[in-house]
């Protein structure tokens, strides 16, 4: 029984544990550099797109292991259009940046609708439909860009979506009370307050919810386990907040990622659409016979993926301060890898936003750590490939083991039969 519990625990938290190990490993390899406040800050800003695209990709993968190959090209296309609009003068003035944002989101939406229509209603295999998108949208972007980079200069836009030195949440509380200093570093007070509030909120929610569940007579985890878990989570949050506060505060990109992840965590776990995504991926026929329009579910998944790709393009051009022909190359693979590392099944039906967060973080940590350790770029790719196969292998082996346990029993019986037979023949 104990062994079974440990196995379950490992299954559930394997990748989380792996991430922690990798973080610690790189801490020593880089001589502590990888956990410097500015490194952590960069980790978020540089990988923002992986979180956003990974979220969309998860929706597609949930419906049955379907992937969207086009997202990198969509980011490039929507980004180009957005950048061009921001640089265009109309009646002597630059077009205001919110217009560009809306256009970029709409571009993403249109792409999503386009894919959704072909995949859900015409039944074009997703791999092909999105491969078409991957080629066509990049081509289209290049046509718009005329093969050249377009620089984004709008400061407001970059401040809101994160790009330059000023793209942090301003320290509203800077002049309230005395300055906060630890080890000679001036801390961002807004960030500290926000972190403490978040930690308190989580603690209160956990225990209020537990009390409510007990009151309604539901089964709950042991109090000790809950307390331990909460302490761990709160500790991580506080540490993270402290690191950010000792650099420049909360990066704006972080707010956007958190918002997207929160919304989609809600959608996947608490709404009928989310439930339907899992059901379609688990057994499409049974879902259809349960009165659910499975085509609509597929359509929704790809539409949302499109919108998220549009949103990712905003973050990407803000961060890069430009749109260009090669922006977004290989993004689809980062997103797919994040999902699978995070435990999504390649056959659909299982996976979670939490997994995407872990997957994207692990990939980000490895990327950054290797950069700091000055690993050559080509070796980095090999390492990332190996990480992906290890992550998936672990899951596959765990499942094989469960089936294998049954088979072994049968084989053992078989051996018994053989031995008795032979014994009989001898006598």
């Amino acid at each position, binding site marked *: 029984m104990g062994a079974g519990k440990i196995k379950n625990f490992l299954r559930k938290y394997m990748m989380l544990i792996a991430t922690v190990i990798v973080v610690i490993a790189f801490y020593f390899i880089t001589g502590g550099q990888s956990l410097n406040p500015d490194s952590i800050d960069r980790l978020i800003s540089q990988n923002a797109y992986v979180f956003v695209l990974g979220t969309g990709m998860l929706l597609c993968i949930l419906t049955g292991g379907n992937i969207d190959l086009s997202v990198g090209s969509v980011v490039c296309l929507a980004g180009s259009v957005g950048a061009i609009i921001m640089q265009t003068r109309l009646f002597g003035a630059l077009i205001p940046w919110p217009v560009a944002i809306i256009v970029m989101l709409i571009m993403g939406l249109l792409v999503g609708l386009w894919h959704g229509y072909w995949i859900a209603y015409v039944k074009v295999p997703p791999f092909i439909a999105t491969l078409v998108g991957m080629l066509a949208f990049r081509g289209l972007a290049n046509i718009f860009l005329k093969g050249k980079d377009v620089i984004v200069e709008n400061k407001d836009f970059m401040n809101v979506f994160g790009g330059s030195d000023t793209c942090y949440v301003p320290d509203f509380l800077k002049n309230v009370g005395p300055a906060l200093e630890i080890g000679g570093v001036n801390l961002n007070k807004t960030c500290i307050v926000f972190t403490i509030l978040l930690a308190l909120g989580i603690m209160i929610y956990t225990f209020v919810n537990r009390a409510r569940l007990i009151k309604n007579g539901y089964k709950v985890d042991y109090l000790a386990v809950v307390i331990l878990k909460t302490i761990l989570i709160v500790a991580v949050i506080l540490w993270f907040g402290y690191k950010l506060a000792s650099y420049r505060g909360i990066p704006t990109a972080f707010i956007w990622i958190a918002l997207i992840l929160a919304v989609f965590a809600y959608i996947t776990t*608490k709404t009928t659409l989310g439930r339907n995504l899992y059901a379609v991926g688990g057994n499409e026929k*049974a879902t259809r*016979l349960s009165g659910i329009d499975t085509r609509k579910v597929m359509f929704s998944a790809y539409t949302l993926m499109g919108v998220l790709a549009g949103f990712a393009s905003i973050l990407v051009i803000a961060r890069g301060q430009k749109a260009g022909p090669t922006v977004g190359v290989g993004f689809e693979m980062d997103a797919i890898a994040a999902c699978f590392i995070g435990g999504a099944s390649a056959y659909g039906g299982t996976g979670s936003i939490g997994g995407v967060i872990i997957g994207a973080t692990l990939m980000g940590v490895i990327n950054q750590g290797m950069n700091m350790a000055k690993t050559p770029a080509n070796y980095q790719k090999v390492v990332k490939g190996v990480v992906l196969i290890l992550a998936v292998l672990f899951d596959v082996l765990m499942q094989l083991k469960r089936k294998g346990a049954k088979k072994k029993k049968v084989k053992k019986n078989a051996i018994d039969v053989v031995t008795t037979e032979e014994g009989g023949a001898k006598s």
Partner: protein
Amino acid sequence: MAKVLLEMKSITKTFPGVKALDNVNLKVEEGEIHALVGENGAGKSTLMNVLSGIYPFGTYEGDIVYDGEVCRFHKIKDSEKKGIVIIHQELALVPYLTIGENMFLGNEQGSKWCIDWNKTYAEADKYLEMVGLTDSSKTLIKDIGTGKQQLVEIAKALAKHAKLLILDEPTSSLNETDSRALLDLMKKLQKEQGMTMIIISHKLNEVSYVADKITVVRDGSTIETLDSKTDDISETRIIKGMVGREITDRFPKRHDVQIGDVMMEVNNWTVYHPEFSERKVVDDVSINVRAGEVVGIYGLMGAGRTELAMSIFGRSYGIGISGELKLGGRRVTLKSPKMAIKAGLAYVTEDRKGNGLVLSNSILRNTTLANLEGVSTGGIFLDHDKETEVAQEYVEKLRTKTPSVEQLVGNLSGGNQQKVLLAKWMFANPDVLILDEPTRGIDVGAKYEIYCIINDLAKAGKSVIMISSELPEVIGMSDRIYIMNQAKIVGEMEASEATQENIMACIVGVRGESENAESVNADSVGSEA
């Protein structure tokens, strides 16, 4: 007495929780056609899978003696090497390859590194001639009908130098003429090649026509072997062997049955096969069910029962569906499962793993899947507490054995999975429930519990249609019984008048009737001309 080619001695095969074969003995002489008959799930196919090595040596107990030696087959190739070839009910042909390519798939002619296509097609033509097929061996499989495809399968088996040919339900997807042609071919092969054959069939008239010996299998055991020379092998005699068990009180009784108005009525319902669009899978069927009534539909596999049920349930099967569907006296058109559920229908599938449950999801998620509106606000925002409550309620009500409602359905036993499936449809709150083989593959205890649930549903005023191929179950549970065979309803009787014999008689009788009907049609056509 001819030489015994095959002897299977006290074969026992156990699946987790079920003894599929219990001490089975089978003796087949060289050059004879031996038929295996029995109800669904009696163990015929399992026995043949043991023989052909699909269940490898070691997973069963007992001995297979073939051609004088004890054989241990670990895979199909092993048994094929010895000349034992099995032709499965579902044809294993690749539609977009030619007849010749299919025949030598895995047995390619020529050298190891280069396929000799001339030889392939020449050989193929030789065997095709043997089975009386005149099509070129370069024709694609998809371009010939199922009858001819079945012949190709036999030719393929001959090309493997088969000495013992096993045909599993070879005529189940064929029409009368093709079936007869196939049976005649079997007789011809027996006479000219001295081929030994084992045929598994539900169609008893065919069995009596073609077989030299008939072995009856029931509940995983061989009951008797009849010899066409010495014994009576009429259909009634075979049936007696097939269903010869007694009906004891395996079925809970219902008290003060109150039957109300007609809830659902289906008139002149006709459905065509989705792929072979000229084949009728449901032919002019009219049935009805009343409130508080349990109506049984009995028929053998392939009779069109599931097709009927699924086509009613929001046209989820078949094409060219015609006929009238009335619910509560009002005529309705149900174009999707969604509409059917809204109209108060529920279809509990026979294929719970394929069509019924999402195995990778929890009991909770499966229970609420067909009625997410019932546990959400505005059909969008799920109320997890309410879901838990509902799932818990049904787990208790149906006595599903599970540690918690968060348990994945894939980890449950068959009986408990069936309960989750029932819970899902009960929560959808239908007026009419169509239960398709509700007790397939579950143990006796769980069966009894399912029967109690069915009775409770009827008591609550629901209309229940129970499709089953187990005669005792149909007779024990139903108020009224329809008998279905070859896409038609061939009989209707009150449960009080039903016996195993007269139900089987309805099925046997259809052959004569349909021939009469055809001759009548021919007459009328003639008079018009």
